[in-house]
């Protein structure tokens, strides 16, 4: 056992645990808390993958901004907890579990059938290089300038749309 594998197992279990807890909590605020925990575990996994920039952006954007908005809306609407998550519609529950099991089965089949690690010769140096902010910045401002400006426009459109929707009164 080496430190990296142990860290991977810890973060992976944490991520899975948090996501299962998120889906099964009755109180939506607690769901949000577990989703935040999940994002942290994911950030840890990204660090293990040498993707430093993405790891930090995951925390700043997902955990630090998007989830704040979710929490604010949850507190604003102040929904009472769902009384019955699992014992409500039995058929739906069985259906959901079958569907997700099928998805997992299919993905696992594809992953193991195609043997992705067979053709890979990962180099640590290259992978560390790929994750640095410098590298991402260079790529962003040489090949991806248009998407970058388009992202700016998308955010502008989202602001305008969200503000209009949030303040709109349907009579």
């Amino acid at each position, binding site marked *: 056992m080496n430190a990296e594998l142990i860290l991977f197992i810890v973060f992976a279990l944490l991520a899975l645990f948090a996501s299962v807890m998120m889906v099964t909590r009755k109180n939506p605020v607690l769901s949000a808390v577990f989703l935040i925990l999940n994002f942290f575990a994911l950030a840890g996994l990204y*660090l293990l993958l*040498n993707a*430093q*920039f993405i790891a930090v*952006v995951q925390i*700043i*954007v997902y955990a*630090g*901004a*998007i989830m*704040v*908005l979710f929490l*604010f*809306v949850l*507190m*604003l609407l*102040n929904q009472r907890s769902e009384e019955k998550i699992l014992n409500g519609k039995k058929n739906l529950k069985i259906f959901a579990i079958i569907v997700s099991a099928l998805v997992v089965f299919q993905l696992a089949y594809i992953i193991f059938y195609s043997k992705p690690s067979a053709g890979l010769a990962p180099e*640590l140096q290259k992978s*560390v290089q790929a994750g640095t*902010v*410098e590298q*991402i*910045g*260079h790529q*962003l*401002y040489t090949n991806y*300038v248009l998407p*970058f*400006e388009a*992202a*700016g*426009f998308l*955010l*502008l459109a*989202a*602001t*305008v749309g*969200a*503000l209009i929707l*949030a*303040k709109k009164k349907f009579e």
Partner: protein
Amino acid sequence: MLMLTEFGKVFIFILLGAIFVTIAIIAAKLVSPNRPTHEKLLTYECGENPVGSPWVKFNIRFYVVALIFLIFDVEVVLLFPWALVYKGFGIFGFLTGIIFLVILGLGMAYEWRKGDLEWARPHPIPPELDKVLSKKE
């Protein structure tokens, strides 16, 4: 390997900090007395019994602030890689950044114009002597 150990150091630092905080909270749990009564465990509301649900509804403006924050926070993060490689790109980098900042400024101007940055101001109405007197009559 070098980078990993730097992040490893940060990880150890956070871990030690967490252990310290946990010890402090557990120590308090062990040392302090614990004699709860119903009155003690009531929510504080100036000595009265609490009225209604504690989770009151608040102003939608808080949501609007969080929304604007989200948008601008993402834009800050988009700007960091630009700031880092800016010196190597010359005038092209400058133009890219300025266009992005102008788009950002447009959003800002929209919110400003539509009054989404305004917060409710208090409008105190000071009592006027004439009105008070006329009411008395």
